[in-house]
């Protein structure tokens, strides 16, 4: 099936989200839609999926103009969509989720069944009894054909994110999707899960399904796409073959040349500032997330903690900030013990923190940009005297910081929740780098950000290092670790499986991320120089 979008224009009030967009998706192709956050990718796909009505332009299927009043029409025309945030019912099984909305009632008809059975089936159908067997069979069949490895009887809430995504894909396939839209499908996946997804996409492609792959990650697009269309500010910036270089794509996406890998000089590490010794952290249920971890971060160096998500990185950061109780071990800053300190005390002692989930933990969406910029400093002068807030000082601070960090906002009084991800992260950085600090802890500092913003954030972090701040970066993106770290610590199941210099090959890091241990474990920079350990250790990382 050939799909064609012609001159699609969509406005939201005075804002032009899509402007005269033309797009042709050939049958059996992976067509990547590349663009920064807010470039109009999701709007375009929502138009295609019938969630939004275009103000101008038309959608053609096999040359025939169609119009979708709702997703129901789009689905009937053979278009399927996997949203960035899944639309699954967590307490239903896979099969139940797949049938939701297209429930088949009655029993599946079998040839040669006696008439009384057929009568029974008809009665059940009328009574609205669900035909579970049929969907389970369909799910199994699709799972086998595309190597999805899904059990139809498992409760969705018990599945890892990567498998939930496959359930979404099956949902679309069961509805006979010929064009499958994947909206930022890798945003929630681990590197291994991404590989699996790519394998599935290739299999779907071979089966004749067209894929629209929406992303802002250059490397992924290069790896999977047959054609790349770049969107910038709501309009098509151009088409590229997958052989185009990253720099070409990035420049087209952002509209100027960007530096993908921030340039930095050799680190000049000073004395250890942050000293973590035997830190052990558990959650409310008693599960141990961080297990006797020891490391030091020195002034003027960036320690990058690599690892697959969910190996205790979140808990490590929270424990370092005093948000989670420590069971054993100590945390000290310049020799001062902070193990039992409250978050406020740690902040005052000179720890700056960029949390992993900026909307949940980093910002108060309903508060203005100005208020968010003093969120952990509002009690200190000049922002307050006694209990009185000094609104002028808060506004003045916001004005300087907005300019200094190039935050794109209509005003400092705008609620921060309405800003784009990159600008939200800039607000957090402006705040955290604005107060006196000796240590910067940044967890997934560029997750979900576009190329331009990543460049900005990375530059600022390296700048901090050069000023003598001890920087701890936790990231699941190996690219980010390589770009920033002066020393890499790999975390697996709450332990550090090894320290390595940034010149270490990715395969070696991958082995450590999967739990491979060293022959002579010795934390510290010295261990990083020892030669690669044999292939011992626990095989098989998480899914």
């Amino acid at each position, binding site marked *: 099936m050939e799909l064609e979008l012609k001159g699609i224009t969509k406005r939201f009030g005075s804002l032009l989200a899509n402007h005269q967009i033309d797009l042709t998706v050939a049958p059996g192709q992976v067509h990547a839609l590349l663009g920064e956050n807010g470039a109009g990718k999701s709007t375009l796909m929502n138009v295609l999926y019938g969630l939004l009505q275009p103000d101008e332009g038309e959608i053609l299927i096999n040359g025939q103009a169609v119009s979708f009043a709702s997703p129901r029409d789009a689905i009937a025309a053979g278009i399927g969509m996997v949203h960035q945030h899944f639309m699954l019912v967590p307490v239903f099984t896979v099969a139940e989720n797949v049938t939701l909305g297209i429930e088949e009632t009655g029993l599946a008809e079998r040839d040669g069944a006696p008439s009384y059975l057929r009568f029974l089936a008809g009665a059940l159908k009328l009574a609205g009894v669900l035909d579970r067997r049929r969907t389970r069979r369909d799910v199994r069949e699709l799972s086998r054909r595309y190597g999805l490895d899904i059990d139809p009887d498992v409760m969705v809430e018990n599945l890892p994110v990567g498998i939930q995504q496959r359930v979404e894909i099956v949902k679309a396939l069961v509805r006979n999707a010929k064009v499958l839209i994947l909206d930022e499908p890798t945003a929630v996946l681990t590197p291994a899960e991404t590989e699996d997804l790519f394998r599935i996409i290739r299999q779907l492609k071979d089966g004749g399904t067209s894929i629209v792959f929406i992303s802002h990650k250059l490397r992924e697009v290069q790896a999977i796409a047959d054609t790349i269309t770049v969107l910038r500010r709501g309009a098509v910036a151009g088409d590229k073959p997958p052989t185009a270089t990253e720099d070409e794509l990035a420049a087209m996406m952002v509209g100027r040349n960007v530096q993908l890998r921030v340039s930095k000089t050799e680190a000049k590490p000073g004395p250890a500032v942050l000293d973590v010794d035997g830190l052990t952290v558990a959650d409310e249920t008693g599960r141990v997330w961080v297990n006797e971890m020891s490391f030091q971060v020195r002034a003027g160096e960036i320690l990058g903690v690599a690892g697959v998500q969910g190996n205790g990185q979140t808990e490590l950061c929270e424990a370092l900030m005093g948000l989670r109780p420590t069971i054993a071990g100590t945390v000290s800053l310049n020799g001062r013990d902070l193990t039992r300190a409250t978050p406020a005390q740690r902040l005052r002692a000179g720890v700056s923190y960029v949390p992993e*989930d900026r909307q949940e933990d980093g910002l108060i969406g309903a*508060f203005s940009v100005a208020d968010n910029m003093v969120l952990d400093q509002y009690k200190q002068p000049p922002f307050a005297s006694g209990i009185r807030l000094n609104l002028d000082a808060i506004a003045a601070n916001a004005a300087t910081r907005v300019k200094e960090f190039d935050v794109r906002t209509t005003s400092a009084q705008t609620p921060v929740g309405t800003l784009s991800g990159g600008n939200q992260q800039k607000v957090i950085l402006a705040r955290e780098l604005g107060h006196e600090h000796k240590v910067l802890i940044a967890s997934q500092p560029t997750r979900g950000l576009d190329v331009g913003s990543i460049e900005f954030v990375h530059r600022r972090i390296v700048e901090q290092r050069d000023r003598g701040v001890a920087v701890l970066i936790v990231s699941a993106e190996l690219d980010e670790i390589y770009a920033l770290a002066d020393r890499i610590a790999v975390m697996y199941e709450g332990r550090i499986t090894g320290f390595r210099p940034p010149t270490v090959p990715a395969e070696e890091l991958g082995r450590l991320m999967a739990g491979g241990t060293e022959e002579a474990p010795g934390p510290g920079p010295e261990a990083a120089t020892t030669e690669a350990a044999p292939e011992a250790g626990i095989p098989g990382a998480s899914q």
Partner: protein
Amino acid sequence: MSAHEPAADPPPAASPAGTATTAPKPEEPGERRSFGQLLRQSVTEGNSFTVTVLAIFAALVVGGLINAFTNTTVLHAWSNLFSDPGHAFGQAWDTATGAYVALFEGSVFNPHTVAALFQQASISAAVHDGYLSAVFGPLSETCVQATPLILAGLAVALPYQAGLFNIGGQGQFIGGAIVATFLGYAVSLPPVIHVIVCVLGGFVGGAAIGWIPGELKARTGAHEVIVTIMLNYIMAYFLSYLLAYHYLMQAPGTVNPITRAIAGNAHLPQLFGSHLRINAGFLLALACALAVWWLLSRTTVGFEFRAIGKNPNASRVAGINVERNWVLVMLIAGGLAGLAGAAVIQGTDFTLNDQSFGTYGIDAITVALLGLGRPLGVVLAGLLFGALHAGAPLMQAATSTPVDMVEVLQAVVVLMVAAPPLVRAIFRLRGGGGSLLVLAKGWNG
């Protein structure tokens, strides 16, 4: 992971480059629109203020209809609809409006009192005989009725800003009233000091009751709604217990559940002479509203309250002690409800009985809801409901419309305010859209 890309995310804000040529034009912050345009936009798009005003209007219409079609005279007129249609409609209109006119005369201004005033021989005679007071009587009564509603409404609105739902206005009111009454009759103090001591006592009594749910939530996570509701019962029965024994608080020589009258020194001073019931309690309520506004918008304490109300997680990360703030905000809220108790005892009732708490605790929730959880809104909503309460008796006397009509009006207003889409649908307002965006959110979003 709610960092998804909303469909209406403004592209210009997201792109770091400032060179794009096809960029849609963002709304310039410098572009000024006239006040008229803003007003028209705010009305048609149905912001919360517009919705509230329209909700009140809609409630008046609904109340009028109910009133007209439950009246026997009107129903009789309708039975002769075809022989005399004008009479039927006229009767319905007269009944509905008559009730509202009486309500207005009882709560704001009654022209008859002005006529009576001008029939007096001299100004001094008019003042002396209370004719002048009669003119302002309705307004005075409205303020008196509004006083506890505003104070108790603030006790709901303040924790609401901090993300807590205080249903315990009644229990806190009783706590304040008990302490204020006890200090009022049991101790003997000089004039001004006695008033202050009793008012402060009322604050402390309410704060103590408010502190309990706050502390329990902070320590054990017990939900404040459950605890405050239960405390309402506990306090109501505790009051009955206190009023059942002479050695506790029951007045000597009576079998009724009532205390002795508080000392004259403990009375809140009347503002405009003895003919008008309006007293310093009303000023206290206004001062408290101002104080709550100042606290919320101008202090670090209020900053923390609002922060934990909007996003407790981010607040915790920013070093705010969320639990301590829960305790503090419930403490202050309890104190405000306690002041409502003190204002009723010291301003108008002077004794405490087992029904003194009335329905203030529950009305406070509707006042806070109608006031959109903001101090100024609470004052306006308190005055509106105060006016309804003040005018009800005259409405019943003059038009034999039951006072319960006031409850109907309150209920419809709150129903409408709680369901803005309903008001938007009735008045065909735009705005409040985004239903499509909701579709783009998943359960793990």
